[in-house]
């Protein structure tokens, strides 16, 4: 017995991981894939019915699905862009020798460690149109109160604002870690050559930060694509369907309409989108000659 273990030691040690990945990742995805070719409403009496590609075809004729795709990209692109710009700015500021740097860093962590659902509920109160602090603030400035989460036009920007509030610190912290590890020599050389602050930032800091930025943006982007809890806790996709991103729509299809097959098809498409974006970003990173 012990001989056998000795001979297969590399398998023995990797087995738990393989079993874990198989059970927790491959199986659910496989089952979802299988279900996506069936019509099923979780009924005990009618078993899943094979419908081939019908679920996928239906989705592409479903304007709510197209809308939810657009909303997902809108949310992700705007949120990640704003977070990256703000995050880099904050990190550069924090990299100066300012008083209370440690305290600020700790405060940065707070939005990130809070439970998303709790964050959502707090923002519901902040955005509440009659007594919420957001409108009280606006009125103090002499501006009219807004219906943040209950206006079809304002709901997405309001949600993006929450996301920016919660996740900018993460980008800032990652970038800060990158900044700290940058070499000092190029800056000294630039100073001697007479570069101003902006030049040394755009010509030295940013290029050197590329690898850090790539990974920060990639992580954040995948996360932003998957955003569910904040949206669900604040608007459940409403008003109407104006904040129903693909994740929310999948949930509605699956657990409110019980169209399990169609929900699975939607999730497979979503899976492929996230996967291709990740692969694309990694390829881009390699082409840019960045190694991590």
């Amino acid at each position, binding site marked *: 017995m012990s001989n056998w273990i000795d001979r297969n030691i590399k398998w023995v040690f990797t087995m738990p991981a393989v079993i874990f990945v198989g059970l927790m990742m491959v199986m659910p995805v496989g089952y979802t894939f299988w279900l996506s070719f069936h019509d099923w409403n*979780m009924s*005990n*009496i009618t078993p899943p019915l094979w419908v081939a590609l019908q679920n996928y075809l239906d989705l592409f004729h479903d304007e709510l699905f197209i809308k939810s795709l657009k909303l997902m990209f809108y949310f992700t692109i705007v949120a990640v862009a704003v977070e990256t710009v703000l995050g880099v700015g904050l990190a550069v500021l924090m990299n100066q020798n300012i008083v209370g740097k440690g305290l600020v860093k700790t405060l940065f962590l707070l939005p990130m460690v809070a439970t998303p659902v709790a964050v959502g509920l707090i923002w519901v109160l902040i955005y509440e*149109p009659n007594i919420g602090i957001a409108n009280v603030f606006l009125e103090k400035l002499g501006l009219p109160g807004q*219906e943040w989460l*209950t206006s*079809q036009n304002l709901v997405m920007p309001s949600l993006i604002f929450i996301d920016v509030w919660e996740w900018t610190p993460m980008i800032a912290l990652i970038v800060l870690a990158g900044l700290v590890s940058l070499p000092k020599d190029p800056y000294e050389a630039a100073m001697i050559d007479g570069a101003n602050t902006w030049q040394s930032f755009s010509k030295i800091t940013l290029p050197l930060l590329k690898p850090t930025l790539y990974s920060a943006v990639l992580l954040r982007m995948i996360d932003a694509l998957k955003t569910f809890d904040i949206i669900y806790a604040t608007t459940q996709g*409403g008003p109407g369907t104006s904040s129903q991103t693909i994740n929310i729509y999948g949930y509605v299809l699956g657990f409110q309409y*019980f169209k399990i097959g169609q929900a699975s098809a939607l999730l497979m498409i979503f899976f492929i989108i996230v996967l291709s974006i990740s692969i694309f970003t990694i390829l881009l990173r390699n082409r840019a000659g960045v190694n991590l």
Partner: protein
Amino acid sequence: MRNSFVGFKKAAGYLALAVGISSALAGCSGGSDTSTGSKSSDKTEKKVQEIRVVAANHPWTESIKKELPEFEKETGIKVKIDSYFEDQLTQKTSVEFASNSKGIDVVMFRPLQDGKMYQQSGYFADMTDYVTKDKDYTADFIPSSLGSVKEGDKFYGLPLVTETQVLYYRKDLLEKAGIEVPKTLEELEKAAKKLNDPDNGVSGFVSRGKRAAAVTQFSSYLYAFGGDFMKDGKSTITSPEALEAFNYYGNMLNKYGPKGTLNMSWPEAMAVFTQGKAAFYTDASSLFTNATDASKSQVADKVGFAPFPAGPNGAKPYNVTSWALGVGANSEKKDAAWEFIKWAESKEMVLKLQADGNPGARISVWNSPEGIAKFPKDLAEAIAANGGDKGVPYDRPVIVNVGAARDVIGDVILAGIEGKDVKAAAEKADGEFQKILDSEKK
């Protein structure tokens, strides 16, 4: 970095789940040994049997919890109640039933929302034998409320809570302005217009505006204008009557409603009303304790109730069984589950709970003075006025996929509240609603 945390959390979750399942299985096998225990209650040394009741967060659930010790002492059956918010309850029970879990013995469900789907999916045990064992058992139930828990002659549940739409109003505001309690929708609009005073933080009218949630409370308006959701399997939401109703309801909230109605289901709308920020409110009668309980409402002593106002087609409020109790198809303790339902739905218990403010489905209780003692007098009158042949026994399209239909119809209500083109929205929704109806004909 964060992903690995999520993975870890997931793993921990599954582990907990596994532990939970194995202990639940142990519980089941322990229980099945004594599944006939309730019949031989004279046996002194029988094992304690535990049944699991999955219920909604509802005033009824709060009330029954207080009475449980009596039942447990009497029968030796332990009762464990899990309660969830309405929509989560549907999800939770559907998923559990679909996975053939044996864990649910008694389920509290909404006959109009989930009844048809659960029944067709085979989630319910057939209760006919239990219910009809005692011939007169159902004689005391309001007949229309029994209709909502039957498939042909077969019972899959027993009605638990009934409700009808009533008008909540502020006595003090009406008195001050010298306005009579509105009896028609026209009068309601005039009164709301007069009392609407946003500068002082009081809206003329509040009601649900959130997509799907609004549909049930909109239904009485729809019937009052002479419309309906569907007829003979055809959508009728673009009929002139329906369009009038959509316009009326939307207009009321658009012009005289508080801010943010598009996200309001009953808890939010009720909060606006009970904080003294609205003059009129229409919603289900069963929610009245929220408005009259001084610990929850700032206007507890100023709330008046009236029957739902009449429209061009007369007064046609919904009058429905909103909640019922059923037995899970895979329950291994059906006898004990029935014992519980029989007790919870007994005359004495319904009387007791109705005195707590839970409108039940028993005729004798409604006819007894104690049965309505705890109801404000004007509310009891309003409920009575809504009953009889006036009441419509459904407040949403009664089909399998109620959720999808409510979302589609809710979009039209939304367009009305936002002051958009209701006709265009209704025509779009009409097609989608018809698609849902057609898909169920197959």
